[in-house]
């Protein structure tokens, strides 16, 4: 009884409402919004137009809160489906893992901890500032994604490998209860990225 009373008092004091009181309840994993298969773009005869259209579909994933929240334009990540600024206040820090004394790993473990709604991954971090997507058009994100001076020196094959094998990217489809997963499946996303690369990696005009 005492811990519950304490939790209630703390939740009220922190303005968390019912969050702390309901953390022990589990919620079923939601599915994200739908994503079109790469094959559905094969009817576009012009290769460049097809490639740009594929990236348009890819953009549904890149601009989803699960991805965009940690590709911020500022030093501060966002959180939740509503993309509010992260609480408590945390910053990118020198290497994307937070400031001395309050690093990402202070709260985020190696995997999700659903009883407390805490998301986690082995290398939970912010994307480097050179890969900030917030506020950019899909065309700008596309050019940035291909630019090896900004993308960590990755060629197209390395980009496809990154988005299909990196555990933090894959987390986007397994974000734990209370967060909408990234659109479609990672397999669909990987196939779209491969088809985009194979078709010349064209970028949308805007």
């Amino acid at each position, binding site marked *: 009884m005492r*811990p519950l009373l*304490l*939790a209630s008092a*703390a*939740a009220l*004091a*922190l303005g*968390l409402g019912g*969050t*702390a009181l309901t*953390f022990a309840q589990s919620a079923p994993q939601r599915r994200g919004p739908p994503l079109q298969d790469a094959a559905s773009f094969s009817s576009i005869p012009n290769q460049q137009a097809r490639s740009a259209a594929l990236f348009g579909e890819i953009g549904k994933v890149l601009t989803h809160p699960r991805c965009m929240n940690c590709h911020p334009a500022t030093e501060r990540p966002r959180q939740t489906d509503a993309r509010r600024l992260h*609480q*408590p*206040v*945390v*910053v990118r820090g020198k290497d994307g893992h937070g*400031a*001395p*004394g*309050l*690093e990402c*790993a*202070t*709260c985020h*473990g*190696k*995997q999700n*901890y*659903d*009883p*407390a*709604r*805490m998301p986690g991954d082995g290398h939970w971090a912010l994307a480097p500032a050179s890969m900030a997507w917030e506020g950019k058009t899909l065309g700008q994100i596309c050019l940035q994604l291909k630019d090896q001076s900004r993308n960590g020196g990755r060629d197209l094959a390395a980009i496809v490998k990154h988005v299909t094998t990196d555990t933090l990217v894959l987390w986007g489809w397994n974000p734990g209860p209370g967060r909408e997963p990234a659109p479609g499946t990672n397999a669909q996303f990987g196939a779209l990225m491969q088809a985009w690369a194979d078709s010349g990696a064209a970028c949308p005009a805007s």
Partner: protein
Amino acid sequence: MAHTFKVNGTTHSVDIDDDTPLLWALRDNLGLTGTKFGCGVAQCGACTVYLDGKPLRSCVTPVSAVAGAEITTIEAISGREAEAVQAAWTAGDVPQCGYCQSGQVMSAVALLKENKKPTDQDIDLAMNGNICRCATYARIRAAIHSAARSLEV
């Protein structure tokens, strides 16, 4: 099932569910009540301990995640930075109700271990995750500066 980890230099084996928060194991099973339960969702910092020397919110960490690790709690922090913080906290009469203070001290010591001369901004960025319901923030910041100065000599 049994979970084995080291706390304050002693190896313990605790037979509890895998997803039990480390905080509950520390307080309820091992009797180390210096670490506090505040919010249960990593918003207040009262539950801060060290995992292999780095700050960790024990309320959002399952015991299954600390197998074989070295946990340090407020009962056992030691070293120059800890002594400097303790002295500065006492001299500045920092705590009011005191509930959050073990977490505040753990974060302050961790900061000083990494940054010997923190600026106001460094302090704010390190201590943002430690909420004080008595709003002793000004005294906390002054005490960290004071502790840093004492470490220069």
